[in-house]
């Protein structure tokens, strides 16, 4: 993480030490959580600590928003494949990151294999087009989503952890129908218009 203060060995204490001097052991990050009756000097110290912690958290949030997280990688590519991202076409190369919103295209000789962060495997043959609509893999906040568009061409899809945790979160959209899955390997062909 960038822009955050480092608290040495914070997580090794069990339970982690409270960051608010007036209430040791309180582990909530919400500003109002750790209020407790206290003397005035302690109040000032506490308010200062709360602001200090709040700014660290703010810094961490801003830091992580500045660099969008990738959702997967290109594991293999056999020439003639591009990623369209924010209006720019980038030649696809092995180990390149995939982002939400990317459109992956292969030409007449191309093919490509992708691994998503939840272990979903997607591969495409030639003359194919695939859009990453919404990938979310954050089980600790119960945020799970795998929505992609198979616009044209041939595809192999092998489900990953998102489908195991919440099958309803997976939607493979094609021009003519939506595909829902239950932990599985699916092949899809979409003829171009």
């Amino acid at each position, binding site marked *: 993480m960038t822009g955050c203060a480092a608290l040495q060995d914070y997580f090794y204490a*069990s339970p982690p030490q409270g960051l608010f001097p007036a209430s040791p052991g309180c582990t909530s990050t919400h500003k109002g959580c750790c209020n407790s009756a206290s003397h005035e000097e302690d109040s000032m110290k506490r308010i200062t600590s709360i602001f200090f912690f709040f700014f660290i958290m703010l810094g961490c949030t801003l830091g992580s928003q500045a660099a969008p997280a990738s959702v997967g990688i290109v594991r293999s590519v056999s020439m003639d494949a591009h990623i369209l991202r924010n209006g720019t076409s980038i030649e696809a190369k092995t180990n390149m990151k995939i982002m939400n919103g990317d459109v992956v295209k292969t030409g007449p000789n191309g093919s490509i*294999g992708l691994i998503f962060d939840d272990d979903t495997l997607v591969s495409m043959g030639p003359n194919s087009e695939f859009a990453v609509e919404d990938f979310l893999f954050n089980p600790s906040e119960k945020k799970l989503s795998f929505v992609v568009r198979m616009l044209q061409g041939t595809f192999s899809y092998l489900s990953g952890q998102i489908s195991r945790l919440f099958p309803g979160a997976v939607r493979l959209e094609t021009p003519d129908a939506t595909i829902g899955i239950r932990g599985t390997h699916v092949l899809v062909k979409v003829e171009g218009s």
Partner: protein
Amino acid sequence: MVSCSSFAPSLKLLILLLAIILISGCNRKTMVVLVPDLDGKTGAVIVSNDAGTVDIDTANQATTISGRQSAPKAPEPMTKEEIEAVFSRALAAQPEPPVHFILYFISDSNELQPESLESLPAILQTIQERNSVDISVIGHTDTVGSDEYNYKLARGRAEAVNTYLVGRGVEQGHIRVSSHGEQNPLIPTGDNVSEPRNRRVEVVVR
């Protein structure tokens, strides 16, 4: 196969192409085939649009859909040869699945179980063999304790494994450390159930 959006340089050619397009109906078709997964097991798919829904739960069966307004057809078997003929390039491009390692921890701590210590060298070896630049280290807990407490405990476990890997020469930039708290159990249990197999870190090498 005639492309429905062909560019025709001369009038004669344009008329000819137009005739072909009209005759063929310019129908776009979608085909969905259920096949066995890497373990040989078969899952299920549900293919639906405004006009209808079709379920497939038998391997090597396919449905075709001729348009948004026409219902998906009843599933029909496809031979392996037919499947290969259509999907050979896509199947050949299928990535090798990432390698998962599971390291188990002593209850309420960042300490590895003794048996798991022996798994550590194999992780380093796999990273080298695959020249991996994308490694996830994800911490987990069982459901004993609050969500919040377990998020932090799991994070601490993942950080401990991360420290080991970086200490043995793996680049920090290639590793992503995260916590799933108690929300992604290996063995689903009720709340507040002690389950040693859930007290773990999963290392995923892509």
